[in-house]
């Protein structure tokens, strides 16, 4: 499949400018997207070749073909789906709770100087606690099952969202708020019609970094004794000496994380069409 794409797409890249001049600007972008896919495929091919020549220890560094075989075997037995769904479920629930709490508390802290001065120092110091440090405590408090895992992920998501929202509210352009004042908007109307749209771009960026941290924390969560999930595949692979399974789980994390981020970007894109950003003109 991958090989097919690499062959057909550069072909359109070459014929595109010749057939229609208006597509000149589209083609390089598509070609670049293909090049972005090409890099990991090239690295995989190189790895495969090095392994085939026995230049590396195949037992510790299984080639992509071996990883693929292991993962398709897991998939065929329906196990991969279970692990992926378990991990996704934890990330989503943890993300939802963390993002909601981060947004609400961030909004209050951003809107009220007093609240910010009271809670911000505490939150900032909690933020610098490494994720793993929470694990023993959460297990003691919330047990070994889902609750403690979701709590850990929620903590991870909370901080970037809190910081992003509080910072965005503080930096809302005073001049735009004045437009709201001139038209005598009530406080709720000012929040809805000026403040919320103004913080939207920063909020979405904070959600994206929160989601990234959610994936980071789900591994820590699944290290603390899970019987399913991609993190479990990592631990299991280490204990059973299956590097192909570990690498397969790592790749699965990379793919899942990228897909989730992409979905988030896609879903929020219509909210930001008005933006006049560098990205658009580049």
């Amino acid at each position, binding site marked *: 499949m991958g090989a097919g794409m690499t062959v057909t797409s550069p072909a359109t890249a070459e014929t595109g400018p010749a057939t229609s001049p208006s597509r000149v600007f589209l083609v390089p972008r598509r070609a670049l997207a293909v090049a972005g896919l090409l890099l990991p495929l090239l690295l995989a091919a190189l790895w495969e070749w090095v392994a085939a020549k026995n230049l590396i220890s195949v037992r510790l560094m299984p080639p992509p073909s071996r990883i693929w075989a292991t993962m398709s075997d897991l998939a065929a037995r329906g196990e991969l789906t279970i692990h992926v769904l378990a991990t996704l479920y934890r990330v989503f629930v943890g993300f939802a709770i963390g993002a909601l709490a981060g947004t609400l508390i961030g909004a209050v802290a951003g809107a009220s100087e007093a609240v910010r001065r009271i809670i911000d120092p505490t939150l900032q110091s909690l933020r610098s606690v490494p994720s793993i440090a929470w694990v023993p405590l959460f297990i003691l408090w919330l047990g070994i099952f889902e609750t403690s895992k979701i709590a850990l992920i929620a903590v991870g998501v909370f901080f970037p969202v809190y910081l992003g929202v509080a910072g965005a509210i503080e930096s809302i352009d005073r001049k735009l708020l*004045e*437009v709201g004042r001139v038209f*005598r908007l009530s406080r709720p109307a000012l929040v809805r019609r000026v403040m919320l749209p103004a913080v*939207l771009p920063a909020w979405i960026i904070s959600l994206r970094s929160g989601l990234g941290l959610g994936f980071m924390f789900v591994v820590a969560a699944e290290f603390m004794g899970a019987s399913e999930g991609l993190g479990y595949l990592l631990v299991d692979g280490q204990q059973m000496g299956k590097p192909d399974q570990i690498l397969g789980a790592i790749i699965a994390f990379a793919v899942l994380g990228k897909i989730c981020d992409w979905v988030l970007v896609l879903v929020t894109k219509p909210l930001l069409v008005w933006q*006049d950003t560098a990205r658009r003109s580049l």
Partner: protein
Amino acid sequence: MLRLERLSKTYADGTQALSAINVEVGGGEILALVGGSGCGKTTLLRLIAGLDTATEGRVIVSGETITSPHEAVGIVFQEPRLLPWLKVEDNVGFGLAGLPAAERRERVDHALERVGLAGYGKRWPRELSGGQQQRIAIARAFVARPKVLLLDEPFSALDAFTRASLHEHLLLLWEETRPTVVMVTHDVEEAVTLADRIIVMRPKPGRVYETVSAHLDRPRDKLSAGFEKTKRRVMNALDRSLRPETPRPSVAEVEAAASY
């Protein structure tokens, strides 16, 4: 219509921005405020708009004292200040949320037409030039039909051609509802082109230095003798206002001169 009574503003750091401003502006009159930087022109507009509160004195619009933004008072800022997340039509109709959709649409379309941007309603502000954005800001202020419209150097960032066409658009809109207009400008020609009366202000603290009336026929002929004469009078007053305190005529001198 609009009355400023002994209006003074001293900032928290002790800077006296305005001192005892007494001005009366009639209904439908266009008043221009000119003066060197730091003479409190913008502060004065912000007080009338109710965005700041006066330290002393008061602002009265149709008998009502203004202490916070009021529906009878509209303002166009130095920058367009459009909300980037709203389409042009929603920016123009921003202050009309309380009206039925049909009436809002009608007023917005009409205002867009008057500022020469009919058909631009569905665009984003980022797609417009600076002059077009400022026209949208003017339309936004007009659709709310204020009795008093304040303009804070709204044309200062634009080139001479754009500025001249914006003057026309402004006068077209003004003729429809004839609001009282108070505009701040640093451009004497602009003041004489638009205003019925020009107040020259003097800085530190800001106060009224001289008033020049400019009751010329509209549309104004910039090459006419009357236009030229009014412009020169404003410029002379401005020159004198910027000189050190001493040459300023005392009340006694003025009275002595008047008796001749």
